[in-house]
């Protein structure tokens, strides 16, 4: 051995990798020094990640379900009206040139199906009772391609284009105290003058959308009879079923411009029920809020854990600094410990979250009868797993873990060796 202060034999090109390997080895072994504490910390971070991903999947599922309920039950992903009809609710404002419109709709690739309708407020009278209702005249075949009316039938038969057929909501039938085959008189005001018009119907079927306002306030008749009843040769509304739901959001698609002109007003479901789209937009902030709360908890928990670990190892850090470890290297070691804890937590969290969310996407969470923004959740909410969110949240968790380790790492790096070792050397 030498006895003078000559520099040691060094291979500078190997120095960086050797030191990195050393720091990495120390960090990996240190996190399992107190296995119970590390596992508890991992559990805290993992559970937070699960909560965040579950919330995200739940919100996505809820949004999907609500939009599905809203659009597929009856609304459609878009609707066409005569300009001014929705604002005035005037039955005189109807689409007259329906043949041209249908031809145009048939040529639009994005439109999977459409359903023409007439609609008017009416008085329905049975032998026992009277009730007001919204009467829709629909094309039986086309309506079945757009809405769930046919699927919602609980008793009797669906419309078959025979005059005199009427479908009633179950609760409306109860109110009118009628059953299948019973007679019913519908009284409406005709278009162009408002003369009263009446027609006799026989209850051919009962339906239930599992939505109170629809089941007590709607009745369906055949379109042709409805047109005769109102004395019009057009339709008030054409409901659209698009190939993809996202096409309803993309107002840059050419068909939206083509179907909006001086005569026609075509709106997407977001515009038709703005309160629902607003509520859904707000709902999506819940993931952000839950994430923030969870990440704050993660930060506090991790800072606490890292400080406990650091305080326990003050002497050791003092030794490391004393024998030549640079403060920067100690800083990296603590950060690396945090990174490994984060990595382990993310791995466990992703596996748990995927399991829970997958289960939720298969089984669904039953919120039936719960009403939100006027919409009854009449089917379970199936969680929607978004791979991108899993990826981004995993990255975010590791970043948050590293941020939480900054303070403890700075604390360790700034230690004075003599203070850290206290009464040893």
């Amino acid at each position, binding site marked *: 051995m030498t006895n003078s202060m000559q520099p040691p*034999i060094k291979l500078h090109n190997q120095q960086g990798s050797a030191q990195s390997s050393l720091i990495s080895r120390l960090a990996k072994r240190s996190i399992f020094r107190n296995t119970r504490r590390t596992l508890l910390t991992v559990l805290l971070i993992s559970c937070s990640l699960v909560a965040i991903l579950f919330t995200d999947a739940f919100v996505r599922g809820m949004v999907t379900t609500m939009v599905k309920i809203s659009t597929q039950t009856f609304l459609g992903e878009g609707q066409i009206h005569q300009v001014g009809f929705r604002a005035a609710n005037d039955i005189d404002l109807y689409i007259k040139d329906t043949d041209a419109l249908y031809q145009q709709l048939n040529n639009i690739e994005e439109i999977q199906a459409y359903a023409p309708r007439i609609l008017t407020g009416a008085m329905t009278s049975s032998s026992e009772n009277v009730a007001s209702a919204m009467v829709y005249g629909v094309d039986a075949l086309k309506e079945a391609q757009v809405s769930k009316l046919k699927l919602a039938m609980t008793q009797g038969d669906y419309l078959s284009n025979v005059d005199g057929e009427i479908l009633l909501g179950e609760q409306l039938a109860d109110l009118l105290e009628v059953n299948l085959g019973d007679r019913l008189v519908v009284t409406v005001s005709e278009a162009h003058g408002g003369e009263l018009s009446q027609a006799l119907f026989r209850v051919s079927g009962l339906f239930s959308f599992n939505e109170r306002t629809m089941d007590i306030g709607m009745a369906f008749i055949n379109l042709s009879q409805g047109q005769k009843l109102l004395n019009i040769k057009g339709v008030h509304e054409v409901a659209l079923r698009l190939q993809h739901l996202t096409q309803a959001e993309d107002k840059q698609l050419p068909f939206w411009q083509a179907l909006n002109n001086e005569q026609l007003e075509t709106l997407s479901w977001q515009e038709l029920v703005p309160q629902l789209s607003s509520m859904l937009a707000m709902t999506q902030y819940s993931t952000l809020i839950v994430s923030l709360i969870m990440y704050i908890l993660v930060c506090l928990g991790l800072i606490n854990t890292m400080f406990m670990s650091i305080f326990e190892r003050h002497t*050791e850090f003092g030794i490391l600094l004393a024998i*030549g470890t640079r403060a920067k290297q100690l800083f990296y070691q603590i950060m690396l410990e945090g990174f490994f804890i984060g990595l382990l937590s993310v791995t466990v969290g992703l596996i748990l979250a995927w399991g829970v969310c997958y289960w939720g996407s298969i089984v669904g969470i039953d919120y039936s009868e719960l009403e939100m923004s006027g919409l009854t959740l009449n089917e379970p909410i199936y969680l929607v797993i978004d791979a991108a969110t899993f990826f981004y949240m995993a990255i975010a968790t590791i970043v948050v873990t590293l941020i939480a380790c900054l303070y403890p790492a700075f604390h360790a790096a700034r230690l004075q060796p003599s203070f850290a070792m206290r009464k*040893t*050397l």
Partner: protein
Amino acid sequence: MTITTQTDTAHKVINMTTKSEETVIETKQLCREFGQGDTLVKALSDANITIERGEFTAIIGPSGSGKSTLLQLIGGLDNPSSGDVFLDKKNISHMTGTELSDFRRDHIGFIFQAYNLIPVLSARENIEYIMLLQGVSASERKKRVDMLMHAVGLEGLGDRRPAELSGGQQQRVAVARAMVSKPSIILADEPTANLDSKTGADLLDMMKDLNEQQNMTFVFSTHDPKIMERARRIIRLVDGCVVDDERKA
């Protein structure tokens, strides 16, 4: 060698002549104070010490006399309140943190009272640690570790963690770690305090041999009579002041 000490009540100058001509450690007017105002404590007062290369020196004194403080200042583990520390003519008092870390790594070996090995590293890895920081090649590391494991009598125990070694074995690892980077100075704080008398004596003999063979400079703080017996020079501290400096024939 000249030792100058100052106390509030007296000034004492002890002049001694040494054969060595190369000064390794030199402190000038070294002071360390803790606290302030009424709670001000002078742990070390105006210590002027020079130590030549190859000396085997013991710093003795009662508890609280400033032994550990002096070693900490010499080792660059603490900053002096005033005064300077020169190691091999370099003033370490004005070095940056990184410069000081590198200087300690390359030029000073530390042996601590409570062994203070890194518990998550094996004996071999503990010894190897400093060389990894220095970027020494793998083959050179292996060669030096094997040689030192043999020198301190720990062959075959390299893969054991500190918790699996006895106190004496741990302190031998600490000695090997202190020497592996070929430092010119080894500072030891009561290295035998936690060892039984036989183990302590064996360890001291081993360090004494290394001192003589390698001409390394050893500075101990100690209460241990065995160290005092073996030391060629004894510096006595009382209340932070150097009050005596004895060189044995």
